């Protein structure tokens, strides 16, 4: 058993990064009504790359369970992580074009917060 785990463990350590990082299905969740058309387009081209795709490690948009602990940190922390980058999250959420207002709206949407919560 240990030998099997050795093989499988290293296999996943290496192959998943190098060749096995497969394209999981990219879900196309309905864009929430609170996003303007321009921000909905940003969501689809930037945020959805990770937050609407299984297996990236990013909490999925609209996944209440995945966001409970994160929301508890406070909106300011979520926003700062988005702007600065945090672990796999690229700075500005891969949206260099976004203003702070855009990012606030998109963070609130992805984290499942009510409009105005930010």
């Amino acid at each position: 058993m240990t030998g099997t785990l050795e093989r499988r463990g290293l296999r996943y350590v290496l192959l998943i990064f190098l060749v096995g990082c497969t394209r999981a299905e990219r879900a196309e969740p309905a864009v929430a009504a609170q996003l303007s058309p321009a921000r909905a387009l940003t969501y689809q081209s930037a945020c959805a790359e990770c937050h609407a795709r299984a297996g990236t490690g990013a909490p999925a948009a609209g996944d209440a369970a995945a966001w409970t602990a994160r929301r508890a940190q406070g909106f300011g922390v979520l926003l700062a992580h988005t702007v600065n980058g945090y672990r796999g999250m690229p700075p500005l959420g891969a949206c260099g074009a976004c203003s702070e207002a855009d990012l606030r709206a998109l963070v609130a949407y992805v984290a499942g917060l009510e409009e105005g919560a930010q």
Partner: protein
Amino acid sequence: MKGLTRRELLRAALAAGAGAAGLAACERSSTGPAAALPEWTPGAPLPWRNWSGAVRCLPKARLVPGDEAEVAALLRAGGALRPAGAGHSFSALVPCDESLVFLDRLQGVIGQDAAAKTAEVWAGTRLWQLGPALAALGQALPNQPDIDYQTLGGALATSTHGTGAGLGSLSSYVTGLALVTPAGEVLECDAQRNAEVFHAARTSLGALGVVTRVRLSNREAFRLVERSRFVPLESVLADLARERDAHPHFEFYAFPHADVALAIATDPDDGSGAPPASAGEDDPEAILLLRTLFRWTRPLPGGSWLYDTFLGMQPATARAGQSHEVLAHPRTVRFNEMEYTMPAEAGPECLRAVLAEIRARDLPVCFPIECRFVRADDVWLSMFSGRPGFSISIHQFADEDYRPYFAAIEPIFWRYEGRPHWGKLHSLDAARLAGLYPHWSDFQRVRRSLDPSGRLLNAHLAQTLGV
């Protein structure tokens, strides 16, 4: 196996094994390890940062035009600006304290010629969205890079590429484009119309204006199967020419401080029955676990042997799917990267020198070194201009200082006439670059004619282009 977490698997493995200056219109920017740059807090001016976090600036304006006329208008308005793609470049191509231009509202396929297998695409389209969009038309890019976060325009500006000795960079498949010049004129360019601008603008570093539309020469949609296996590095190098020519796509990763390599051959899917690429596992922590393994084994007596042994015992794998599903891989652990492309015949010797230097200096690096092949092209500032290339990419985790490692290795690339990837870190200036590109002066002439005052130059570009 599905029930085990990555950390449980790693614990088992570890337990078993080891117990610029010049005429720059955009002046200031910051470049360095991400941890060294100031963090943003709510209420502060919003910076721009690249994907790795190591490059930063504070633009006064973020311009997001809604159509080509708006692109032209903002260029006519004057002032310093830089076109920005998705921000994936590691080099400081984007920073500008005045205006950044984003084509985020210019996305998608504009039209197609089904018979000719061509498609016109907005340059703001992200590569990860381009594959499915072309597939819906029955088309596919002939090749594509293993990272697909970039915009099409950004990828072309830096001659981004995949692997395959018979396949070119993305820029080499451009048969026409629209360039909005610094004067606000829309130039339609191809091999016949504005031909010199076309040859320069296919890989422009964003120094000629804003490329808004691109016509791509594609092929019919196709499926691929990717097979990977760990093998001794020496066996890969000994059999390299055969492997390179036997597969449409072939690359390998060499591992610092190890004698194994991961060889990856990708071929047309002939009903292989391989697991679908679209349903595979993913783990953004995976490469971090490799780093943990490296750090644990490194100080142990015989640790190098253990590390090497672990790598060498990995089983072969395969995955299959549509070309854009197989060729691209998410990279959710961020890093910084340097890549040079050597003449194809010099690549293996250069790689040996790189690996020897890492060992000789005992550099504490474990990030695999990627080695790829690219066909020669006629794009003026493509790294593959006039010669087939062997590209070697070295990486460092974004939370570590890349500078000592890259500084130690970069001179080796120079010895082999390496050309730096424009979107990746390098320290060459115009004087040295000029000798590497047959059309260097042609590009400079076109750039001067389009942007005589250097409105589109930042400090990095001014140094790179010698302006």
